[in-house]
Each structure stands twice: as structure tokens, then as C-alpha cells.
């Protein structure tokens, strides 16, 4: 067990930090947020060149050897700079779903295409009533005229405005929350019958609700294979969201610290007020515990599925709660200025607010955690001791 970065990981972290410093200062980012696309296609091309899209996949899978640790390094950095580009949609949710498909040539091609970054892909999986339950799929798929046709609705699809292609989950059989009977389809962004209702979230990320009315799709997997791909995408998405929340709250903490050292009230700088010092200490505690929580989630991703589910659920609960606490207090300790659109600190809060809601909120994940955590009498080997 080693908590330090490997050489490759250090290089990846450095490349993210460098990009943030050179190309993603706060002014540039604010302009992007008001642009029609909501992100920079030029940056997107840079990310492809830097190999970021494949940073969360092993080489055997068609990536650059990163795994979830690579994803975490990227997204912690994204959290610090409040990146707008739909990397989570494309390189985590969609690409990890593809990588989770049974191995065949089609998968290899699609993974390779996604690692190159063109077109932008998005995973259209969540539905209005699902609230984070992976098996909740009400969109139906049926065969007509030799093709699969999808009908239904998807909600708040990350990258849903930028995407040229969608991976869409749809039900082949069973009731709406059956774990079996789900199919995963590739759908062209311009397919007939597909309507996107685009909108913006409070964190300035663009998403879309999709209405599907007999949209043609290519079946990539079904049954357990599709569920496995969706689960893998969700797991990696949760890890990425946790890492991004960590980056955002850590940056918010230290920006607040710098502010307290300079802001004067009552004849002295704010850092001299013990009540604020202690609040900051509580915030630091939450940041460090969140980092630990992310590590345990990453460690569990190589383990058996039950432990992975449990570890990721615990991480989403803990890091969402900590992230809200830290970034909200970052606003509070800034006072009025923290409430302004102009300053970065309020945007950390808004991003964490959204990430805490994506991929199942804390209530959902506490339920998941409890499902995997029995409450039982003392184990027999202990009881036998005396």
C-alpha cells in the first residue's frame, strides 16, 4: 500500500496543475461559462493530446495505464480550477461504460475513438424517478424493421448538449427496476426522434434532458453485460465526483485561509479571531477526512463488487457532506464578497452542490451502504474467547 504518486501519476498531476495555471485562470473560465458551448473545444483537443481521456484506463483496455487513481488525479485538479469541459461525461461515464463491455472489436474501436475525444460522448442513463438507482430504467427498447428502437426519457445528462453520440440504457424486458433485462445502446446525436432539451445547472455546466421517440440505436450489450458496464461507469463516476469535490473543497479552504490573513475588521486581520480559526480547523478536518475517504474508495475499486459498492457509497455520503460543509463555510467566512458571482469561492459551493446530487445523493448512498453493512451479533471467533 503506497499513498504516494508513482512517476506517471506525478506527471499526470503536474500536467493538470500546469493547465490550470496557464490556461484556465478564473477570468478565462468565467468567459467560457458565458459562451454558447459552455466550454472550450480548443481545450478539449488539448486534453486529447495530453492523453487525459485515456488516463483512467489500463493499457490492456485501450487507455494509458491509469485506472481509477488516474481519474482521481485528474478530477481533483478539475475541482480546483472548476473545469467546465464535459470530461466526466465523456471520459468517465461513457468511456468506462464502453470499457466495461464484453471484449470485442466494436468495443476496441469505440474505446479508441473515445480516447481520441471525437466526437464527445455522453452516457444517457438517469431517469426522473431513478434517484441514483442504477437498475432504474424505464426507457423501452424494441426491435422494428430489423433495428432497435428506443422510446422514453432521460434526465440531466452530463455533456448532453456537447455530445455527438450517446450511450443510452433502455429496457428490453422486466419491470422498471429489475437488475436484469437492460440493454446498452449507441445512439447518434442527430438520430431521428431524439429531442434534446438543453439547460444549465447552477454550476454553469450544461446538461440536457432527452426525449426518445422510436430512436434507432445499436445494441452494444444486454442483461448482465449491460448492467456491469453501467455499474462500472457509475462507480468510476462516483470516484471522479468525489475527487472533484475534494479538489474544490481543498481549494476553497486555502483561498479562505488567504482571505482571512488579509481581510481587516475590528482593527485586525480576521485570522486573529479564534472562532474563525476553529471553524477553519473543522473545515481542514473535513478536507483531510475526505481525502482519506477517497483513498479507501480507490483501494476498494480493485476489490470484490460488494466491497466496492460499499466503499463508493460511503465515500459519496461522506465527501458530499464534507464538501457542502467546507464550501458553504468558505462563503460564510468570506462574508458578503463570498456571495458574489465574480469571486471563485461561491462557485466551489455550487459545483459541490451539483456533484453531491449527481449519481445518487447522500440519502441514496447511505441506503446503499446499509444494504452492504450487516448489523450482527459478535462474530463467533470472538465470542468463543471468553
Amino acid at each position, binding site marked *: 500500500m503506497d499513498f504516494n504518486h508513482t512517476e506517471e501519476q506525478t506527471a499526470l498531476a503536474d500536467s493538470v496543475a500546469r493547465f490550470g495555471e496557464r490556461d484556465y485562470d478564473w477570468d478565462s473560465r468565467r468567459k467560457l461559462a*458565458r459562451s454558447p458551448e459552455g466550454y472550450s473545444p480548443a481545450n478539449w483537443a488539448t486534453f486529447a493530446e495530453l492523453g487525459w481521456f485515456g488516463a483512467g484506463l489500463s493499457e490492456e483496455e485501450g487507455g494509458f495505464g491509469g485506472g481509477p487513481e488516474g481519474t482521481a488525479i485528474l478530477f481533483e485538479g478539475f475541482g480546483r480550477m472548476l473545469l467546465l469541459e464535459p470530461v466526466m461525461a465523456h471520459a468517465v461515464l461513457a468511456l468506462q461504460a464502453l470499457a466495461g463491455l464484453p471484449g470485442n472489436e466494436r468495443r476496441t474501436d469505440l474505446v479508441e475513438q473515445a480516447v481520441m475525444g471525437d466526437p464527445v460522448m455522453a452516457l444517457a442513463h*438517469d431517469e*426522473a*424517478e*431513478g*434517484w441514483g*438507482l442504477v437498475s*432504474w430504467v424505464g426507457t423501452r427498447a424494441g426491435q422494428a424493421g430489423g433495428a432497435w428502437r428506443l422510446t422514453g426519457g432521460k*434526465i*440531466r445528462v452530463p455533456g448532453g448538449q456537447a455530445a455527438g453520440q450517446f450511450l443510452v440504457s433502455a429496457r428490453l424486458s422486466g419491470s*422498471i*427496476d429489475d437488475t436484469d433485462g437492460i440493454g446498452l445502446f449507441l445512439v447518434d446525436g442527430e438520430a431521428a426522434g431524439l429531442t434534446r*432539451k*438543453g*439547460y*444549465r*445547472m*447552477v*454550476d454553469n455546466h*450544461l*446538461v440536457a*434532458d432527452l426525449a426518445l421517440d422510436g430512436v434507432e440505436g445499436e445494441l452494444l450489450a444486454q442483461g448482465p453485460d449491460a448492467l456491469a458496464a453501467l455499474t462500472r461507469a457509475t462507480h468510476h463516476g462516483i470516484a471522479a465526483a468525489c475527487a472533484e469535490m475534494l479538489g474544490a473543497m481543498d481549494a476553497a479552504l486555502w483561498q479562505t485561509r488567504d482571505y482571512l490573513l488579509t481581510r*481587516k*475588521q*475590528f*482593527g485586525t486581520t480576521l485570522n486573529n*479571531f479564534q*472562532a*474563525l480559526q476553529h471553524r477553519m480547523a473543522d473545515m481542514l478536518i473535513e478536507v483531510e477526512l475526505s481525502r482519506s475517504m477517497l483513498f479507501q474508495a480507490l483501494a476498494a475499486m480493485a476489490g470484490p463488487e460488494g466491497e466496492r459498492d460499499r466503499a463508493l457509497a460511503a465515500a459519496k455520503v461522506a465527501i458530499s457532506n464534507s464538501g457542502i460543509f467546507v464550501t*458553504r463555510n468558505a*462563503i*460564510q467566512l468570506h*462574508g*458578503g464578497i*463570498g*456571495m*458574489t*458571482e*465574480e469571486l471563485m469561492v*461561491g*462557485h466551489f*459551493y*455550487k459545483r459541490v*452542490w*451539483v456533484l453531491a*446530487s*449527481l449519481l445518487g*445523493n447522500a*440519502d441514496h448512498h*447511505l*441506503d446503499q451502504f446499509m444494504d452492504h453493512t450487516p448489523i450482527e451479533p459478535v462474530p463467533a471467533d470472538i465470542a468463543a474467547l471468553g
Partner: protein
Amino acid sequence: MDFTPNPADEAFRQEVRSFLQANLPADIARHGKRDSHSARADIERVMKMLNSRGWSAPHWPKENGGTDWSPRQKFIYLEEMRRARVPVLDRTAIDLVGPVICHFANDAQKQHFLPQILNGDCFWGQGFSEPNSGSDLASLTTSARREGDHYIVNGQKIWTSEAQRADWIFALVRTDPAAKPQRGISFLLIDLRSPGVEVRPIWSIDEVLTLNETFFDNVKVPVENLVGEENMGWTYAKKLLQFERTSSAEIPHIKRDVIQLKHLAATTMRRGRPLAEYPPFAKRIAELEIKVMALEWSVLRVLHAEEGDPSLNAVASVLKVRGSELFSDVSDLAAMAMGAHGTAVIPDTEGPHNMRPELDAPPVTDPEAVGAPQRAMFRKAATIYGGANEVQRNIIAKGVLGL
């Protein structure tokens, strides 16, 4: 202790409710659902409606156009106003500058300003804070130098709420730079159309405009716009905060918000059932409601207290801290109750608003949901404005506990 309800109160409540049912225009009630920052045009119409009944500012002295209702009745009035989703009126005028004029201004000032406020003809911005005087208000530096019949005002105010739609601003200004911080301050009324005044917008994180910076560059203010005595402004400002000791608790507004929160939880579906039937979320609502009950009864204690009862300092000090927390929390739950769309920007597309160029909103059909996510963002300010909760805790520790 005697908690027998007064039947007259219930009758009064019905009277207010019936009046609003009969008189509140439907389009304004619809805007009020959104509870985004109210439009001036709506407020003007509501004020005229209220003024026709003599209800524009019930807590003012009766001789100034207020009422002689009991404190309990004034509270019921506010509850019913919020419950009917009457838009938030010009609180700066009605709750802040109005009472100061009633109590400290001369007759000419009263006759000039009060009727305009009551009829919704004159809107106000507030000028307390400055960039370097936030929680530490007494350190303000905006200056007013006497020159003949005028003050020459120079300086900058910040967080001048609603100044973008206001006609006038009241401002604390320093008239005696040599005096101790609290001593040299005066209370000036300034016409925002005066040359040298500039109002610049401050966008808040909900992307709505209510906050401003207001700059004064050699602004000439007639001396007749001084309220009371020169250098006594700090005293008036402190009094001002006591006129409505209970308003910072925001109970009528929070109770309105709880109704809306429950609506959203009852109508949003989660895995085939209303969210309201999902115990962890229902529990969040219940825990909030219990806290609201405690705060509401704290407000009632203050309302029923005799003037100057010292035992009330303790409970009065509680109101702002807990009220602002709940005001924020209830808005968080409302956004959460919307599910996935609770993270979306849902601009108020019918009513007037200051939203910046915007993509289409998500297909939210329930008007109760419009604006809720942005409201949750804006309410993070509640624990900051009106004296940050950290300052309130200082006041409790020193003023109530004697620490």
C-alpha cells in the same frame, strides 16, 4: 402563563386572508410563487392595494399611517401575506427607513416621504456597509461635509440592496471625522438621481441582481435631508434594528417555504412513490419543522413581552442566528425535493428578472419549482447579511452571557 388562544386573533386572520383572496391580482400571486426578487411594478400595485385598506405598514405608529394592531395581529398579518405569496415588498422602505422617519424625522420629512412609501411611489436602497466596514460597521468612512445648505457626500457603499430599482437611498455617513467612530455618524436621505451618484450592479451567485455598490462623488445633499440631529445617526440606526426585533427570524417566510417544500416533496416522484413517502427525506422535513416551531414560539415570546423586559434579550438574540440558518436550510430542501432538476438554473421567464442570457430551462411544469434552485444559492447570504452570525454570537456572548 396562560396559553388560551384569543378568538379575536383567529377572526383577524380570516379578515386578512379574505382581503387577500379578494384583492390580490392573480398574476402577482403567480409571481409570488416563485419568490424570486419581486418586480417593482408588482410591488407598486400591491402597495396601492394595501394602502387603500390602510395596511401598507401596520407596524408604523398609527398617526404615521400604521395601525394600532396588537403585536400578535401584526405577526398574523405578515404570516398571511407570506402564506398568500404576496411578493416581498420594499423592506428597506417599510422596515428600515420608514420607522426611522416616523420616530426621528421632522414633520416636513414625514409629510414628504411617508405617504410616498405607503403608496408604493418611492422605493429605497439601504446604505449601511462599506467595502472595509462589513461586520465592523462603525468604521465606515463615507463622508458628508457641510457646505452652506448642503452636505457634500463622498465615498462608497456596498451591498446597497435593491438600489438598482430604488429612487432614494438612506446612508450612514461620517459628519465628524474627529469624533470616536460611533459618534461622528449621521443619517442622510439621498436622492439617487442626484449628480455624482452611481449605482453599479453586484451579481450574486444565484445570478440575480439585488446587490449593488453605490458611489458618491461630490454629491450635493440638501441639509433638510438630514434625519434628526447631526452625528446622532448611529443611535438612530441602532434603534432601527429594534423596531422589528422579530423580523430577522423570518418565520412567516419560512412557514411559506415549508408549505412549498412539502408541495414539492408530495408531488415529486421517486421510484414510483412521492418523495414525501421516502423516510430519510420526510425525516429531514420533520426535523426542520420542529426547529421552525421552536423559533416561532421564540418569536411569540418576544411579541408578547412587555417593552424593555430584560429577560427577552436572550431570546431576541436567538432569532437572527437560528432564523437565518433555517431560512437557508428550507431552501436547500426545496431544491433537493425537485430531484435532478433541483440543480438546474430555472429562470423566472414570465415575471421580470435580471437573469443573464440564458439557455432554455429544463421542462419543469410546476410553477412552485421555478426559481427554487437559485433561491437555495442566494439564501446562503442569510447567515451573512444583517450582521453575520459570527457577530451575533459575539453579541450573545458579551451582551447576554457577560463573557
